[in-house]
């Protein structure tokens, strides 16, 4: 009897995560989607964001989000993969045991700290050495690239380590060098994990808010160069939610809904990739 009640109660609790996810989906969409129907898709995906005049075009922010995300990947993937490969294949056990936890520990550094470092170091550096306002696509890409490093390193490392040792031994027995083994054998074998890590990193970059607000400049126009100011979907939500009312607030929720769809799609892809491996 006691066991039956406990099982029912635990089943109910077990739905807390998926239940929360559904609740989040419901409220974000309920608040945002009616506005998209009211103003029409043409207005919503236009270039003009001018809430006081009823224009809620998010195209420039979509492009902004896309630019900083691609920039973050350009910075994050090479360094993240290099770190993962070095730790998994080239370093001693000692180095592995020290660096892996350190990199994972750094994943816990709050995003505002990264944004702050952007303000005090990176933005002035870009302003003096490359020109422009400093608050830019470039600054955001570099900071976001650093922020997604731990995600990429950690997941790629785990999938490289998971490749059976017989693969390596077979390759060495054929006279291949370590690097040849990595390129020809280990990376293809660990591919799904590496891709999942990159996709999760991408999700983190698109969704990041506070760090980007602090260093992107947030001007409402499409940047013409990487030194121009940029505004992302997330920054728009965070900058304007504090005072927005009526349709304006609904438009911010519509931005959120759009962002949510992208992130959930990326998550599902990553989950499917890693799930297949198991």
């Amino acid at each position, binding site marked *: 009897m*006691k*066991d039956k009640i*406990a*099982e029912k*109660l*635990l*089943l109910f*609790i*077990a739905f807390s*995560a*998926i239940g*929360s*996810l559904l*609740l*989040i989906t419901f*409220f974000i969409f309920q608040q945002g989607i009616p506005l998209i129907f009211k103003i029409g898709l043409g207005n919503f995906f236009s270039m003009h964001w001018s809430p006081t005049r009823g224009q809620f075009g998010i195209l420039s922010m979509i492009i902004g989000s896309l630019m900083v995300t691609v920039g973050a990947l350009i910075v994050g993937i*090479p*360094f993240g993969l*290099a770190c993962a490969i*070095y730790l998994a294949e*080239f370093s001693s056990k000692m180095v592995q045991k020290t660096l892996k*936890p350190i990199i*994972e*520990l750094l994943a*816990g*550094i*709050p995003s*505002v*700290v990264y*944004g*702050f470092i952007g*303000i*005090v*170091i990176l933005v002035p550096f870009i302003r003096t050495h490359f020109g422009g306002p400093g608050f830019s696509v470039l600054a955001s890409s570099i900071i976001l690239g*650093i922020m997604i*490093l731990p995600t990429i*390193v950690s997941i790629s490392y785990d999938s490289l380590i998971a490749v059976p040792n017989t693969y390596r031994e077979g390759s060495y027995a054929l006279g*291949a060098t370590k*690097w*040849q083994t990595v390129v020809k054998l280990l990376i293809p074998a660990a591919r799904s994990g590496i891709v999942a890590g990159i996709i999760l990193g991408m*999700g*983190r970059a698109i*969704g*990041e*808010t*506070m760090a980007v*607000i*602090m260093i992107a400049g947030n001007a409402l126009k499409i940047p013409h160069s990487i030194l121009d100011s940029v505004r992302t979907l*997330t920054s728009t*939500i*965070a900058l304007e*939610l504090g005072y927005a009312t009526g349709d304006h607030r609904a438009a911010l929720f519509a931005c*959120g809904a759009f*962002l949510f769809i992208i*992130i*959930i799609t990326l*998550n*599902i892809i*990553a*989950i499917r990739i890693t799930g297949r491996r198991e």
Partner: protein
Amino acid sequence: MTFRIGPRTSQIIAHIILLLMTIVTVIVLFFIIGYVFKNGFAQLSLEFLTDRTREMGKEGGILPSIIGTLFITVLAIIIATPLGVGSAVYLVEYTRGGLLRKIISFGADCLAGVPSIIFGLFGFIFFVIQLKLGWSILSGSLTLAVMIIPTIIRTSEEAIKAVPQSYREISYSLGGGKLDTILKVVLPTSLPGILTGVILGIGRAIGETAAVIFTAGSSLNMPTSVFSSTRTLAVHFYILAREGISMPKAYGTATVLIIIILFVNLVAYRLMHRFMAKYY
């Protein structure tokens, strides 16, 4: 005549490049913390930690933010721990593969990837406005609780899985029921692993900004109840830095924040390590 790099040479070049890139990565990450500490340590004093915040943060200390962060985090953990651990127990002890397990796991995995600004939007419309809790510690904690549930589920699940099957069998053979076995054998054995998840959740809650700024608000008053609005350390630091109110105070606040988070994560890591060494 084409010049080809032999396998030995390419091996050496690759090794050097990978080593250099790893060193750069580690240096950058250390530099970030080191830079904040270098400028922040000078700001730390007993007065900074125990004084009220004055003139929007230009003067005084950060006591209200420390108290606010503490309240919000503790409440979030109190809400999230039973839900997270309960889900993990159900996943490991009651499901045998199948659709139900897939749905529950999928929910946790997806929720883990949702960005904090979405939690902020959700908490704002649901807790602050619909449930009329206003900008308050309670709204902030509820939002953070939803956010850290997946962390607790995932870590607890691993810990509970690691409990050897023989422990359960011994308990059953002694006449223990399923619930008794879970409460008296499985949970005590996996406690360090579960605690790791809870502590990681604490770390995430303390460092969060986007999800709390729209749910707990940014009041600098000393919180008096769960319905008071408060400004957590991370939010206070964000406002100091972004509005350029006081750079020295921003460095000081960031240093306190980073020290707390590194400490929390280090404890979680040590605990996990000891636990894993025992059962894996």
